[in-house]
């Protein structure tokens, strides 16, 4: 069933491997465990958001408000920190409240998309302005730094299990559970179904609006989780810190083989897309590429990757329509 899907993922995988091989020749530290920990930990936020974005893109929508939404939640967390006691209870509470706030904001997007039927890119363009405007208005852009955090949260962010930072576990947990949802639950199936054919999905009784509602709310939920990850990673809340991240997130998802027209996309693919962007960032300095040329390289790799993928896709598509032509007798 996944013959083609695998191929799509395969093309990213191939590019990732090629870059890895090059980098490991160029820089001896590239293939060290420490470097990979840094890469993974440093891309947890992008990764979590990209996983949520995958579901949205599968339903052929897009959400450009993710970074603003995540920042809004992070600022709320920072605000709450000032009132929370220094105990493990606070950390638990944050893990309950942050995703909840995220879900509320995501649900707002969801309602506008599903009930009012405004195209998602428009809705989220609007909420991007609204969320980030309000955040800046209320915070004035001021940092909330670690001196105001409960010690328990600092302790949480420093946890390492088997030498692996806690954030990587959080990332893995989000990835595995979302993969499970897509593959093994009805709602996950519905997400794929409405992306594959929206009209058919209503005919077989799938509640189109509810599913749209779900993907945006889930995106919000993950935005909440990402806000915790971001806060714990930088041990500060920076109201401008995630600005512009939404395009990176979208780039990661589509590099991972999700189809912007819907219906196709997978968690492993997205993880590869995140990884591709991550090692490119990481590799720029390791490979000692001239600062001023780094964007050229990044941009070129994105264009090449998406073109290669498209060409590949077409080739496979062409094979589909084959007729078993009779040989001359």
């Amino acid at each position: 069933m996944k013959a083609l899907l695998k191929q799509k993922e395969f093309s990213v995988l191939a590019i990732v491997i090629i870059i890895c091989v090059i980098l490991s020749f160029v820089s001896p530290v590239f293939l060290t465990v420490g470097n990979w920990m840094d890469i993974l930990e440093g891309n947890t936020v992008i990764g979590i958001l990209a996983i949520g974005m995958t579901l949205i893109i599968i339903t052929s929508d897009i959400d450009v408000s993710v970074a603003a939404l995540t920042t809004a939640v992070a600022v709320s967390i920072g605000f709450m920190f000032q009132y929370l006691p220094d105990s493990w209870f606070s950390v638990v509470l944050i893990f309950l409240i942050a995703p909840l706030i995220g879900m509320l904001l995501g649900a707002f997007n969801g309602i506008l998309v599903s009930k009012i039927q405004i195209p998602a890119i428009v809705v989220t363009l609007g909420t991007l302005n609204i969320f980030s405007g309000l955040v800046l208005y209320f915070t004035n852009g001021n940092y909330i730094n670690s001196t105001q955090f409960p010690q328990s949260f600092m302790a949480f962010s420093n946890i390492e299990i088997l030498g692996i930072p806690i954030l990587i576990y959080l990332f893995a947990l989000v990835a595995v559970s979302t993969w499970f949802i897509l593959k093994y639950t009805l709602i996950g199936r519905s997400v794929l179904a409405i992306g594959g054919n929206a009209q058919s999905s209503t005919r077989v009784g799938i509640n189109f609006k509810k599913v749209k509602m779900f993907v945006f709310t889930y995106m919000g939920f993950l935005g909440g989780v990402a806000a915790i990850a971001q806060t714990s990673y930088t041990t500060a809340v920076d109201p401008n810190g995630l600005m512009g991240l939404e395009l990176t997130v979208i780039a990661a998802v589509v590099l991972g083989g999700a189809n912007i027209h819907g219906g196709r996309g997978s968690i492993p693919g997205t993880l590869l897309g995140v990884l591709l962007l991550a090692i490119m960032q990481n590799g720029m300095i390791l490979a000692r590429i001239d600062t001023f040329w780094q964007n050229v390289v990044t941009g070129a790799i994105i264009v090449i990757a998406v073109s290669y993928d498209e060409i590949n896709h077409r080739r496979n598509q062409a094979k589909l329509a084959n007729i078993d032509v009779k040989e001359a007798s």
Partner: protein
Amino acid sequence: MTNIKLSKESVLGLIALAIFVGLSLFTPGFLSSGNINSMMFQLPEFGLIALGMMVVIITGGIDLSITYIAAFSGVGAALMMTNGFGIFPAIIVGIIFALACGAFNGVVVSKIGVPPILVTLGTMVLFEGVILAITNGNAISGFPDAYSLIGNGYYLGIVPFSLVIFFVFTIITGLLLNKSTWGRRVYMYGSNDLATLFSGVKNSKVLMKVYLYASLLAAVSAIIMTSRYNSVKVDLGSSYLLQSVAAAVLGGTNIHGGYGKVMGTIYAVLIFQFIRNGLNLMGVHSSLVDVVIGAILIAVLTLNFFSDKLSRQKAKAAS
């Protein structure tokens, strides 16, 4: 069924008018000649980019690289002038730089068939990188005085010259879209590209021209901007990117393609202009201006939804 019904665009025009009147009444200084004047100067650069974005959106695409195309074009013109060439060759080079970018987008979109949002996401980073590599991130400035007339001078002593340019390109865009065969094909392609292919339309040619035209508008905008600001840097006009998408969509352009009117986009650009200017004059915190813009975008589309629903119910009741 054909009772007098205002088009989406006219309603938007009325909204723009209402905002204008409201602000004139309640915001001191809004209606002052100085303020009207400065709004006339501010309008063209953004309006041109929004028109370019609209044309791309009508084909069901999007051009995320458009502001970097503008910046690149500005860099081209600036380099020429700072190297002693005249204004005219500089403008030509600026336009050529932009068209080169547009052609690159066009080829990848139309020949390879990569979805525009992906192509331009990549070229956005790519063009930015190329500008950085050329300028090392520094601003280029110091243009001849005559050049600054394009963005700062007046036609006949009252109308900003840039506004005249904008007006001319608005008309050209309107004519091309509504009266030229290319424009017809753009709309048809935007609705169903397979059907145009099966009608003998060379889709790649249509698309190629779309990206070239958008980049031409970006170049014109860049010339006005560089002339107005007397300088160019990698982020020239970058804040117009998402705004131009918002303006096109607020103006009624269908984000999935097939529909979009010049007048709608112009009204949307006016609305944005009035709101920003008015709120600034009122001393509203600039973050809140963004909030208002976002809210208007959502509010207008929500209103559209409910009025559509209402008219559908009416039509039903009538028959």
